[in-house]
Structure formats: C-alpha cells, structure tokens
C-alpha cells in the first residue's frame, strides 16, 4: 500500500522515528518552559546542560565505573546541583532586570561550558554504549525498532507527565505557581520562596541533564550536541507558548512527527520545517498554540 507514493511501511516507521525525536524535544522544551514560566529566565545554557549531562554519564562510566541506570539519576543530580550554584550566585541578581540579561548570562555560560569540554575532549565526541539490557531490537513488521529507542520514548514521556502532574496537580506545584504570581504574599504565608525558585531552576536543569543521559547512547557525546539541538527546542517552546507546561510537551511530540514526515517527502526542508511552523504560529497566534495572550 502506498500513501502519496510512499510505501505505508516506510511512513509508519518514519512516524515512529518522529515520535522518538519528539520525546527528546518534549523533555528539553519542558525544562525550558518551567524555567521561563516560573523564573522568567530564558535559559540559553539549556543545550550546554544537556550536553554536560551526557558527558557526566560518559565520565561516570569510563572513569568511575558507574553504569547507565545509576547515571540516569547521578548526572541530573550533579548538573542540577551546578544549576543551583548558578542560580544562587548569578541568576538571582538578574530577576529584577529585563529578560535579556538572563539570556545573555546563560548564553555566555553555555559558550564557556562548551569551550571547556571542547578543550578537554575535542570535537569528534565519545562513544557511549547502549546498556546491555536494552541492546538489540524488535521487528515490528514495518520496521526494526531498537529497544533502546522504545525505552527513550517511555522514559521521556513518563518524566514529562510526572513533572506536569507535580506542577499542576500537587500542593508543591501550587506553591510554585503562587510564588511566581505573588512572591510577597506567599512569603508572608510562611513559604521560603527564594529556596523554591532555586530548586525549580535546579530541577529544570536536571531535566536537561536527564535528556542528555538518554541521548548519550544514541548520538556521539560531543561538546556541540546541545547547540545543534537547542535552537529547535526554543522554536518548540515558542510554538507551544512560552511557559505552558503541557503545551511544550505536546508541541515537542507534534513537531517531532512533522519533522519525521518532512524527511520522507522533502528531506532538504527537514531542518527548516520547524521554523516555518514557528513563523506561521507567531503570525496567527502570537502567544503560541497553548499560551495565554
């Protein structure tokens, strides 16, 4: 069977691949959306933090003998802690200023982090093996699905929806949202708002690092892996609506699928299709698909 001249089996496999990429977009844009929604900081070092997550996993495996499963927890903790330090010592001073200052600071940090890793490890990157339990693949009839990729989708979506649940449906999430709406009032009610904000940034960064560990066995672990991805992820956040948690998750997955289809029908355009959609969305709904104007 063919659809628009493309065998349906190929189409099915491309949609699945799109879903896999979409889950990466979702988890990265989620972190960005949380940080922007709750801190009003445009975190340009998100890509570098994703890259460092992958590198921490690689270093942990090769120098410390820490395996993949532990690294899934270990790398986000390390990079999240680094995020806490950055928030406490630098970002904190910028909250009262224009968004641009936060953007410039985090952009500068991203360049510094990338420079350090480039100096230490070169540009070609390091290989991270797929963990033994997830090696091999299953034949779905229309395609061969590597088990690891299936795991990426499951893990990423679980973490995404858990995060959404915490922020939208729990008391902690309610404090967070209230703290950003009216910090003085929440503070007066006895809640330590600055601490809450610090941990929110740390958590957003940890999400990036988690995505980095997920990506390590798929891509070469290289200093530029984050900067290649981050622009697309920003577009995802803009399309979804800055600050909208569910919006960024759904948009991430949706754009992954659209990008996958473009790679079949017109591969040359696959790098720009996300930005074309961004332009259209901004023209029609300037606040983004899920944003509140």
């Amino acid at each position, binding site marked *: 069977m063919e659809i628009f001249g493309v065998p349906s089996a190929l189409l099915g496999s491309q949609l699945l*691949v799109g879903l896999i990429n979409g889950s990466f977009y979702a988890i990265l844009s989620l972190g960005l959306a949380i940080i922007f929604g709750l801190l009003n900081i445009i975190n340009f070092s998100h890509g570098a933090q994703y890259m460092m997550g992958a590198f921490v996993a690689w270093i942990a495996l090769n120098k410390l003998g820490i395996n993949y499963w532990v690294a899934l927890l270990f790398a986000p903790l390390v990079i999240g802690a680094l995020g806490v330090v950055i928030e406490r010592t630098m970002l904190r001073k910028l909250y009262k200023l224009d968004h641009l200052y936060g953007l410039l600071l985090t952009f500068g940090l991203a360049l510094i982090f990338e420079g350090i890793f480039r100096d230490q490890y070169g*540009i*070609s990157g390091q*290989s991270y093996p797929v963990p033994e339990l997830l090696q091999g693949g299953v034949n779905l009839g229309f395609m061969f699905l590597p088990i690891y990729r299936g795991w990426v989708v499951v893990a990423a979506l679980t973490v995404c929806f858990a995060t959404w649940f915490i922020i939208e449906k729990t008391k902690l999430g309610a404090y967070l949202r209230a703290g950003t709406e009216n910090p003085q009032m929440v503070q007066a009610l006895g809640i330590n708002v600055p601490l809450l904000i610090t941990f929110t940034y740390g958590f957003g960064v940890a999400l990036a690092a988690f995505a980095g560990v997920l990506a390590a066995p798929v*891509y070469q672990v290289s200093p530029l*892996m984050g900067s290649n991805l981050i622009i697309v992820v920003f577009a995802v956040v803009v399309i979804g609506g800055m600050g909208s948690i569910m919006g960024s998750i759904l948009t991430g997955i949706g754009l992954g699928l659209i990008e996958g289809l473009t*790679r079949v029908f017109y*591969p040359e355009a696959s790098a720009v299709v996300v930005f074309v959609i961004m332009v259209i969305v901004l023209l029609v709904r300037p606040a983004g698909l899920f944003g509140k104007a």
Partner: protein
Amino acid sequence: MQTKKLSTLACAAAFAMLSGAANAQISGNTVKVGVLTDMSGTYSDLAGAGAVLATQMAIEDFIAEAKPAFKVEMVSADHQNKADIASNKAREWFEREGVDAATELVTTSTALAVMKVAKEMNRITLMSGPGSTPITNEQCTDLAVHYTYDTYALANGTAKAVTQQGGDTWFFLTADYAFGQALERDSSAVVTANGGKVLGSVRHPFPASDFSSFLLQAQASGAKIIGLANAGADTTNAIKQAAEFGITPKQALAGLLMFISDVHSLGLQSTQGMYLTTGFYWDLNDETRAWSKRFFEKHKRMPTMVQAGQYSSVMHYLRAVKAAGTDDAAKVMAQMKATPINDFFAKNGRIRDDGRMIHDMYLAQVKKPEESKYPWDYYHIRQTIPADEAFLPLSQSKCPLVKK
C-alpha cells in the same frame, strides 16, 4: 698581478652584493606562513590545533635543517568554516601582515574564497584540508596547491574497491552542500563505471544529528551498500545509528571520507571492516611512525592525513623559498612544481599544472577490535593506489591552465 688581485676582489665584492640582493628579495627578510583553519567547529579534530602544530614542527625542522638567512614566522586564525571570514582574514594577512602563504583551509568554500584573494594579491595557497575537485578544475589558479586528497581520489579508492568486491548496488546519504554533492557525484560515476548501480540517494541537512529517518530510507532501498557522502560528526553519527537500527551488518556502510580521528572517536566495534581511502597512515613504515610519534608526543593524538599533509606542504614550500632565493609567489611556485616531494608523507609526489599534488593513496580497512594490538592500531592497508591512477587524469581536467 696587482690588477688581477684587484679584479678578484672586485668580483668577490660584486658577488657579495649580488647574493645580498638575492637575500633582499625576501620581503622583510621574513617568510610568513598563515594557517587558516577550523579551530573550534566540526573539523577542528581532523585539522585545527593539530594542523597548527604540524606547521610549527615544519618550521622548526626547516630552520634546523636549512639554517636559512631569513626568518620564518607563523600566524594562525579560526575561519569557523565560513568563506567570508576566511577571505577577510586572508586579505588582512596579505595586505597588512606580510603573510606569504595561506595554508590548510579545511572546508571547500573557505578554500575557494581564499584562493581567489591570494591570486589577486599574488600570494600562494597550500590546501591540505578541503576536499572538492573544483579547487583544481573549474576554479584552479597557478598559485594554489591542493595537497592531501580530493573527492575524486576518495571515490576512486573506496567506491571502486567496494563495487569490485561485489557491493554493486548503492544508496547515498549525502550532506546537502557542495562537498557532499561532489562526493556523491564522483562516487556515483565510479560505481557505474565499475558495473554497479545507484538505487537512490537522500540529501540530509548539514549538520544533522539524527539520521534514523534517512537510514530507514536507505534500508528500504534494499541497496547492498550505503555510501556516506558526508564527513566528521555527520559520518560518525550515521555509522552509530546504522548499527542501532540493525542496518549493519545486513547492508554495509562505505564511509567516503573518514579520518583516523573519526575511527578513534567511534571505536573499532562500530567501524570494523569498513573501507576508507586515505592519503596517509601513521603506521605505514618507519618514517611515518617516527614523524607521527613526535607529533603524538605534543598533541596526544596521532596525526590525520590533513595534519601530516600540512607539515609536508609547508616544508616543501619553505625549501622552495630557500632554493629560489625569493618569496616571490610565481618563482616559488615554479620551484615547487619543478621539485619532486620525497618525505615521510609522499614518495615522488609532484605538483601538476592544475595545482594538484599527486602522490600514492591507500585503501585501508578498519581492523576488528581483536586485531588491534596497540593504541591507534586501526587500519589494514589493503592496497596502494599509485599516484597516476589515484587522481583525476589531466586529460579530463577542466582547469584552463592545463595544456591539452
């Protein structure tokens, strides 16, 4: 008697003046070599700081060996793989800093841009890193040398060998820019000429990180061989993901441009058995080992063919300056073209009228992990492709400088 003595003295004086004049032909009594390369981007491992180091080594070795009366200096800069940055920097070097030769120039677009500026300013370009054949064809100049490899030689090595060994149906994964397209075109021609068939190709954006969609298309084509007409991180990611999706070993990959730095970063597990064409391998013979070990001590990585070629080209240039007694571009180039190149990099290499340096190329196969006995022991050399067969024959050249 007295007059004879006098005339001898006069002769000596005149001679001294002449040789003084010869010295004065080196502007500022300094020969300045500029290394313009990718210091921070995709190609910085295969060229980059290693190419700068190779240049330094060449200059130090030349001074020790030739004890020239002139000074030799080096400047370097990062062109970020952008043609405009490269040509602006080159112009600044030529106009204000007295640079005599711009060298390395990985990424074809930067090379073509700088060649033009250099020709206009009457300076020399020595290119070790870039790969496309237009450098010595449509856009050739009489002051440029393309030293290490080109897409024709790569296709002629890898695509030919793989097709002849039974890999007769191909599908290309091509980086969507000048270099990738040139590599696909040259390789397709070789595949067809050797009785093979090209079933299709897909152009991926440059750079890309996820290749699964493109690989699935290659898989659906049913071709025996998936030709990777890309380089650097694109190649390494594609190889890694091909194994993940179970495409290899059912279908084989042919990396049309792979450097030892790529093999090193991917590891032998995922690259074993792949064929590649290279202009240099560190473990070829005693001479290559001796030089490469010196390089390794300073750089902590074995040299790529680009870095080894960089040393050789700069050395050849400096020797030509000394022999010609001038840094005048045309005279030095004539000297370079008249002198065969014999060093650890090339045996009986020579520079043709189109600027192509021809030398033996090697068809290598990546070792299995258990065959590798010591660090960087990565290749079996399967075949030496003689200089005359490795590169585009002059009879097919599109360079206007070639007399037919």
